[in-house]
């Protein structure tokens, strides 16, 4: 059964059509990428799944319809988003940001375990746990944003452009962390403007164009696709 099944959804911002009949599917345990030019609807897709924008159409998670649910209910079911531009609580410390990630949870033991996992995954966060998060570097802030999302106990983790604004070296480190999280058993939906990073990392990729899926397939094959090469790699 599909873990996530987005069926022919539309999202409108006023009169502008952001998503126009978009469908994607994820199997449990997959690592799937979503790429596409600015304005193709990548972020809107994640916002629709998280129910922070009104959606026309149906979205199913683990067999249950979720597009009619509230954002906090969806998070409680295990669909967690690490949003675009990190969106940290910049006046809170690193530790407080992580603590807020566990806002909906009551299982103290599980929270402690996940906190230890995040600190092991990103040791720099453990070193800086008392530091105000607004003063972290871009890469550290991204680690914190991912860590916070992990503390919400995701089964499906959606990341929106985690590599934005990071240096090539930090990107490489980030990619390794994403792989490690995925190997830990979390299904990952990775939205990226860096097509190279996304195609290199994921099993399958959806390429969005004008609010719908333009191309989809195994990431390796897409990388060899002439059209994809022309659009995404020759120009960069």
């Amino acid at each position, binding site marked *: 059964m599909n873990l996530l099944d987005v069926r022919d959804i539309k999202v409108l911002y006023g009169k502008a059509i952001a998503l126009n009949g978009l469908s994607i599917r994820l199997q449990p345990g997959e690592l799937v990428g979503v790429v596409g030019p600015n304005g193709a609807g990548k972020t809107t897709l994640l916002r629709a799944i998280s129910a922070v924008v009104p959606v026309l159409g149906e979205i199913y998670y683990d067999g249950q319809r979720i597009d009619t649910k*509230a954002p906090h209910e969806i*998070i409680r079911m295990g669909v967690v988003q690490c949003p675009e531009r990190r*969106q*940290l*609580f910049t006046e*809170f410390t690193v530790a407080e940001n992580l603590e807020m*990630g566990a*806002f909906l949870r009551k299982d103290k033991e599980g929270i402690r375990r996940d906190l230890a996992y995040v600190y092991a995954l990103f040791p720099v966060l453990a070193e800086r746990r008392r530091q105000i998060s607004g003063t972290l570097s871009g890469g550290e802030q991204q680690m914190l944003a991912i860590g916070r999302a992990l503390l919400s106990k995701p089964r499906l983790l959606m990341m929106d452009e985690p590599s934005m604004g990071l240096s090539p070296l930090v990107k490489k480190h980030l990619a390794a962390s994403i792989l490690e999280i995925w190997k830990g058993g979390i299904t990952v939906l990775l939205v990226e403007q860096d097509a190279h990073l996304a195609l290199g990392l994921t099993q399958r990729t959806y390429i969005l164009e004008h609010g719908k899926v333009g191309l989809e397939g195994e990431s390796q094959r897409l990388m060899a696709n002439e059209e994809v090469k022309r659009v995404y790699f020759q120009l960069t």
Partner: protein
Amino acid sequence: MTEVLNIAVLGTIWGALYSLIAVGFTLIFGVAGIVNLAHGAFYMLGAYLSYAFMTVLRLPVVPAALLAVSCTAVVGMLIDRFGIRPMRERHVYVLIITLAFALFFQELMYALFGPHGKAVGSFIQGDMAIGGVYVSYQKVLCFGASASLVTLLWLFIKKTKTGKSISAVAQNRQAAIYVGIQPERVYLLTMGISAALAAVAGVFIAPVLEAVPTMWVFPLFKAFAVVIIGGLGSVEGAIIAGMLLGYSETCVSILISANYPDMVYLVAIILVLLFRPRGLMGKRAH
């Protein structure tokens, strides 16, 4: 020497009261972006309701006070839920609707209790001497309540999960949604807390100043001043600025003339806006 002691004692009492009034005002602004012109009306409701519960229902002073504060908190939450929520994003609308509520409660109190001041019973009679300065027990009690409630609020926001969720929404509403916080709930709770704190100030100060239908204006102006001086949305700033205002007003009142203390906050507002528009503890322009 007597003057210094007088300023220290009375300044502390008034300063704590200003802080108590202003923390709620700054909190709801910082969290929900609401400039709540009905904030003074909550203070007025605290005073009038405790008066009504004591005289009409013949309740003893403590239950009357507790009931008055709870009722005001509920009124605040109802205003948020039904008056503000439908139009929350429209700031001008929120200004107008909260002003309308303030005027409505003014007229309601006028209709129910008349235009003249109502003497509200003290919690406790008598005076005490603090280093040679005579102060009524009521004022001392008012200080105790203000100081402990402001401290409790601060601890609540800094230390508890629910309190931190208030702070989280104030910092980044989108991020709060992505960790599962429901901002509308936080707004409702914050409005309830804010109204309750203003009501406590009204309950405790009513026996000192008596209850009149226009009494909502004074705390609103003071809250504005404190929040502008302390920095919009900053609880710490409101506490510091509230105390500063208390001391400086008492200073002027004792050393210069009892006619001028209100000049202090007006001058302070102008100076702050000219030289440090973000206030003492303000972080960023919204």
